């Protein structure tokens, strides 16, 4: 590999009239211009302005509490921000559209010599992403260690001779896994579908497998795109298919996450062998606003269809579990936002793939997106046990 420079045969490459790729400085060597940066920047600024106007809490000075409301009349600003951002992203990618692997710049300095510059950039990006998630995990560790576990707190309070007195609204930590892996309210249904597993874990478990499969399909897409033995048409079709599957799995992931957070689902009726009951976390009152969560140590399992059973006398307490919910939703939400970002990129790549955009010369583009995607998978490997299982 020669130092710097682009081989001459690259110059016959036809680039998009939207402007060339980052590293194609054109024949005169002049840098190209782009409206994308200014649009992306002001778009995100307007989006954030809209966000703070749509989600505004007001202080109720009489009751000394915050009241929350979604001001849908202000949604326009938020949507306008998103629209400008999307337009900016379109411009950005439209300039990349024609990138065919020519002008792929190589590093000239140690220690990355001969490695694609973009690949190094992706790794640099992943370094900062690692710090993002370590910050979230530091927050999690600090709060998880700093709070008493609600279940243990309650058990210690009902021990004979215990000096622990529970106040109403006592702050404690009720981990998400209490609702997800241990069944929470729904212990009575735990054996309904699979004999041993709490149903609430099902969406999370499916998600975990979905992400791993999508990691696999993206490497398959890379492998196929690099395969020069295939005809162009067949390669485009196969790469497109693999990318589509990845996109589908990512969509599945977010869908299940929303189901798990807000919607929940029921299949069949109690008593059916296939009865499946996965209530959402918010239906279980695991929300960021839950300062008076009614904790029942043992449900008597003779209530109605939902968790309508009464607490056994003396076996309940009112807890403030907002912190565990905040930590859970923000950490998994940040991960979800990363998945969403990946979906947006995947949508672009699927389009490009079906139109024959990926050839062995520029298959590395798939690899660089794949690095990000695997990283998101890797983070889930840590998030899943920390928030869903333990």
């Amino acid at each position, binding site marked *: 590999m020669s130092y*710097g*420079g*682009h081989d001459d045969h690259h110059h016959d490459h036809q680039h998009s009239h*939207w*402007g060339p790729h*980052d590293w194609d*400085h054109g024949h005169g*060597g002049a*840098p*190209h*211009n782009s*409206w994308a*940066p*200014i649009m992306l*920047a*002001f778009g*995100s*600024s*307007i989006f*954030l*302005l809209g966000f*703070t106007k749509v*989600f505004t*809490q007001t202080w109720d000075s009489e009751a000394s509490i915050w009241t929350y409301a979604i001001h849908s009349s*202000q949604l*326009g*600003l938020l949507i*306008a*921000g998103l629209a*400008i951002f999307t*337009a900016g992203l379109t411009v950005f990618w439209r300039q990349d559209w024609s990138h065919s692997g020519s002008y792929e710049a190589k*590093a*000239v300095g*140690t*220690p*990355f*010599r*001969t*490695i694609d*510059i973009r690949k*190094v950039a992706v790794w*640099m*990006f992943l370094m*900062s992403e690692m*710090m*993002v998630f370590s*910050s979230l995990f530091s927050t999690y560790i*600090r*709060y998880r260690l700093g*709070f008493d576990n609600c279940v243990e707190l309650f058990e210690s309070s009902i021990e004979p001779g215990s000096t622990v007195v529970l106040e109403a609204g006592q*702050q404690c930590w009720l981990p998400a896994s209490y609702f997800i892996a241990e069944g929470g309210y729904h212990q009575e249904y735990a054996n309904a579908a699979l004999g041993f597993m709490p149903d609430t874990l099902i969406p999370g478990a499916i998600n975990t497998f979905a992400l791993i499969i999508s990691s696999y399909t993206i490497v398959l897409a890379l492998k196929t795109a690099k395969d020069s033995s295939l005809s162009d048409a067949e390669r485009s079709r196969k790469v497109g298919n693999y990318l589509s599957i990845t996109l589908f799995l990512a969509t599945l992931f977010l869908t299940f996450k929303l189901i798990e957070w807000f919607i929940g689902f029921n299949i069949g009726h109690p008593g059916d062998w296939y009865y499946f009951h996965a209530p959402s976390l918010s239906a279980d009152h695991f929300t*960021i606003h839950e*300062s008076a969560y009614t904790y029942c140590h043992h449900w008597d399992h003779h209530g109605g269809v939902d968790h309508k059973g009464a607490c056994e006398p003396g076996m309940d307490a009112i807890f*403030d579990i*907002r*912190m565990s919910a*905040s930590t859970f*939703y*923000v950490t998994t939400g*940040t991960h979800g936002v990363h998945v969403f970002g990946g979906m947006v990129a995947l949508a672009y790549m699927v389009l490009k793939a079906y139109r024959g955009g990926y050839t062995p010369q520029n298959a590395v583009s798939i690899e660089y997106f794949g690095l990000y995607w695997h990283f998101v998978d890797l983070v889930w490997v840590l998030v899943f046990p920390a928030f869903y299982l333990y």
Partner: protein
Amino acid sequence: MIRSMNKPRSFGLLAILLFALVLAPSVQSYPTGISGAQDGGCSCHGQTASSEVVPSLEGLPTELEPGATYTLNISFTGGPSFAENAEPAALGGFHLWASAGVLAPVDGMVKTNSDGSVTHTGDDKDDTGMGNDQREWQVEWTAPMEGGAKFTLHVNSVNGDGTNGGDLWGRLTAEVGPQPVEQASGLTVLASAILLMVVITLGCVIWVFYRQDPEAFAWERFWPWFSDYITSTDHKKVGTLYMVNGLFFLGVGGLFALIFRVQLATPGNDFLTQDEYNQFFTMHGTTMIFLAAMPMIAGFANWIVPLQIGAPDLALPRLNALAFWLNPAAALLLFSGIFSGQGADTGWTGYAPYIVSHTAHSGATLWVAGQILIVASSTISGINFMTTFCTMRAPGMGWMQMPLFSWSMLIATLMLFISIPAFGIGLIQVLLDRTIGTVFYEVAAGGDPLLWSHLFWYFGHPEVYVVVLPAFGVISEVLSTSARRTIFGYKSMVFALAGIGIVGFIVYGHHMFTSGMSPVLRFVTMLTTMLVAVPTGIKIFNWLQTMHGGSLVYRTHTLWALGFLVTFTLGGISGMYFPAVAMDLHLHETYFVVAHFHYVFVGGIVFGLYSGIYYWFPKATGRMMNEKVGILHFMTGFISYNLIFWPMHRLGIQGMPRRQHTYFITTDEYFALPPEAADWNMLITVAAFMFFASNLILVYNMISSGLRGQKAPSDPWGGWSMEWLVSSPPPTPSHDPSDLPVLEFAEIHEDGEPGFFGRMIQWMMIPEDDGGEEE
């Protein structure tokens, strides 16, 4: 190039139109109010005053007798109270403000408010007074002993249906006696000055455009020229944008400082209210760090780094432009609310739990949002620069042949983009706390305010080095060139930089000694903080030794570098009082801290950057800067700067508290301040104005020299790093990508056999087949 921009441009215009359409209704309602009820009216009875309701205020004398008491009769005509009142028991109300003198009720129909104004009784359910059932009221007013007064009267004409709907209100103002000279509020001064600056900046842009080629001037050519700049991804143009942005906000930050220095000039001053003062010092800190220092550093990095390491451009040009444009976009959010008195009032540290409490201004939410964009900008530019450093050094330039400015930028960038995600996550938590109601910092839910301090300072302390290390780099370049020799101890300089980079991450606890954090961490960070003095000391001594072994040429940039050495060393010495926990507890909340960090921020960073401006200006513009004006700038700037901040040490030890909007000369046991403190404060204020003015000299010099200065050769100072290889101003791309410069004779930094780290790097690297190994 321009031709291909048509579609994106129409997209952009459409987006702007859409934005304007959406924003138009929002502007009116946001941020809230301009200056309270007197102007905004009685919001409970409709939005705007009605001309139907005619108030009257009788009983005011024509000749005011000081101290006399007058009975004022208030009444009104018109409005629903007369027309369609359903229940005669509720007829109307009033609210009367007097700017001077004392208002007092005569009977049970009127009551006094906490702000001294009077209003009718019975204005809510708990109040059983009958004042709501009247159309006329009487109050007593005692005139002040000197001067006159202004009255503002609001009356409500009520339709008696028990709700506010259908009610109307009217307004009346009256004056009596001699009126004082109208005093401008701090906000008005600020708004006018910033507006003036915007106008001047735009004027300068147009003038620069005109002066480029006065013969061929045509307005049609302006937009292509301008849009070429704002859409550019060339590192030099983006660097220029960064510099303009940085200098503009340096001015804005300075304006904040001047205005609150006016407030602090005399004890017990009331030019600014406490509320305004809080916003001003918050925005002063935020502006100076995030909108002035960091963009200026990024500007230098953009301009110089690719030239210096022999790269055609940065690794990711479009992301580079994005990183820049996030700055002005963030500035809009950061500043929102300040002109309506609702700006962030949290301090630049935004400490929890205040920042998530309801008492913090609504502007704090957008301040947090703006900071998130700053974080995004820093992350993106960090990735970009790291990639550039790691991959695009010219052939032959190993790590140990990189010029020191590039080294300092490398370490600074690394620290920035490793540390800033912690801040970003903290900000997102705060933003969500303030909007959707998560409870990360809500003490009532067990939130730990210290977590915010930790996340903030995990970023905040490295940030200090992020801004100061590039100044170190500039000084290294300037001193070695001016001393006409190589830098003394190149290798120790590099390891000192790297040492600062590592140790800088484990010292941040010293910002939190008084916060009650873990004592173990206090002890650890006390030791590590003292450790930072070692690499910094190495650098100082190396610079001294460079001058000692060289033969110094006194140019303006040399003078600023020498000034830097003096002031930064002083700042470093005053800094050594803080790692000792006991001393820190004593001095933490005083002006001693203010003196210390301004000595390192202004004396360190700003002086370093000024030095850099004089040093690289010929390279960037192709014109020499005027040395005489430059020396005038240095002399006035250096002297007035020291006059501002040196007395602050003394004030701090005497006990003047920082972050407080005023102070009093008192012998009180805890707040004792001697009379001389007032004199020192006045001196500081005067010097602050001088310092601000001296910076205008720089701006004048840059513009006039840039247009009319003497033509610069490609290497005016005799420097030998790669930026001096190319012409002044540099071509585009800066170095020809197909013919990159090769560093062939670098014996000066040659290490001989690779050491331990060299062998490590060789082990990691891809095996070479074409030789040219340099480590």
